[in-house]
């Protein structure tokens, strides 16, 4: 079907459940993986994922396509994650602060690049390196690779500026390259 995400969302707001099903089928995987890699456990991820889509459903009647649908969707997801991190007492600072000049927080020993490099499987190493990224950088990476958001859209979804979003992406890629020995 050739309808855009925005049209599908409006269709759902107008009562077309099929439109929502199409929208959900298209975005459930990326959103789920974005959430899954942003929290510790799968159970938490499933709960948050469900909550995010409930918010989307609840907000459908008020949806107006002012921006790309995915930006709106991941903005909701981002806010839900931030709430989650805050209640867990995690450092939201690392999300909001611009990290371009700040030193990176140390990765946990088990996730240090040189130990990861000993891992046998490349994908395992990538997953570990991704998990070891600071929240903001990991989020930028996931929004880019799962949500297919540009730096500007990442900035809009996470409430930061475009330069910071680009910087986070750059740091993330650099660390993943280091972890994979992929220079």
């Amino acid at each position, binding site marked *: 079907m050739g309808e855009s995400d925005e049209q599908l969302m409006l269709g759902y707001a*107008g009562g077309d459940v099929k439109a929502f099903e199409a929208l*959900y089928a298209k975005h459930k995987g990326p959103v789920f993986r974005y959430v899954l890699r942003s929290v510790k456990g799968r159970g938490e991820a499933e709960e948050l994922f469900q909550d995010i889509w409930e918010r989307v459903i*609840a907000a459908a009647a008020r949806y107006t396509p002012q921006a790309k649908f995915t930006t709106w969707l991941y903005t909701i997801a981002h806010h839900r994650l931030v709430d989650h991190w805050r209640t867990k007492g995690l450092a939201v600072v690392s999300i909001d602060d611009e990290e371009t000049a700040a030193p990176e927080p140390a990765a946990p020993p088990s996730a240090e690049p040189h130990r990861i490099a000993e891992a046998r499987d490349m994908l395992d190493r990538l997953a570990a390196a991704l998990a070891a990224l600071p929240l903001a950088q990991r989020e930028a990476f996931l929004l880019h690779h799962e949500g297919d958001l540009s730096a500007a859209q990442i900035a809009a979804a996470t409430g930061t500026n475009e330069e910071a979003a680009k910087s986070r992406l750059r740091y993330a890629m650099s660390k993943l390259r280091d972890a994979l020995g992929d220079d």
Partner: protein
Amino acid sequence: MTDSDDRIARRYRELAREEPPTALDAAILAKARRQIGDGPALPAPERMRVRPRFQNWAGPVSIAAVLVLGIGVSLRMQLEQPGIESSAPAKELSPAPAPASPPAVVPAAAAPAATATDSIQPAAPPKAVRQNRQDAPRIPKPFADQPLRERPREEFAAPAAVPAAPPAPAFAPPSRPALDAQQAPAASPPSIRAQEAPAAAQGAPLRAKREAMPDSSGPHELRKLQSQEADPDRELERIARLREAGSHAEADAALAEFRRHRPDHRIPDGMWERVKPR
């Protein structure tokens, strides 16, 4: 993007294969269907496809019609009362006591807001919904339970009721208590009608709204009306004050409500410290 970036992206795509469980899919899709099916602002999907535009307005228009009807009936009931009282001595009719007149005027205009504010205080049902969510298994059971079935109705009813709200003040000013109070400023023992009138004027819009919303979720609808109209910062401030006052249950419910209505609103860190769940 460099080649190595492309390689990382490709490897990530190989890695990224996780999908949500099918039970979760089913639960979310069921919720989406139920929202459409139950929401008064959104009609049944099969009829929707035939005439979507008309159906879009059907909900709000019908709610507005019920509101107008309810207010009209209550006004008529008030107008009928003077007939009974007119058999009483004239001096008992005319002197509406001075203290009674402001309440007679104010509630007529501010009845929805006042009652909505009052109804915020208990805030129990939203908490019950959240509580239910926490107690019950995450998926898909909560969706089969009643509290979540109620959520769509309150979430969709609120936006639909917003455009319907303005008629209430427009009808309220000509209500008899207000007119009587203006015409009879002299002090005298308050008549029964003068005492009952503010309550009636206040109660009429509320009753009309409750009639428009079929179950016992009336106060929630009014609360949503208020919260939707309110400035988000003011709403957050109100939640913060609830926290400071120790009303954590109400604050939790209000915060959850706020998040439902404004999922994409960013709560500043300073404010979050004041409103976050304790």
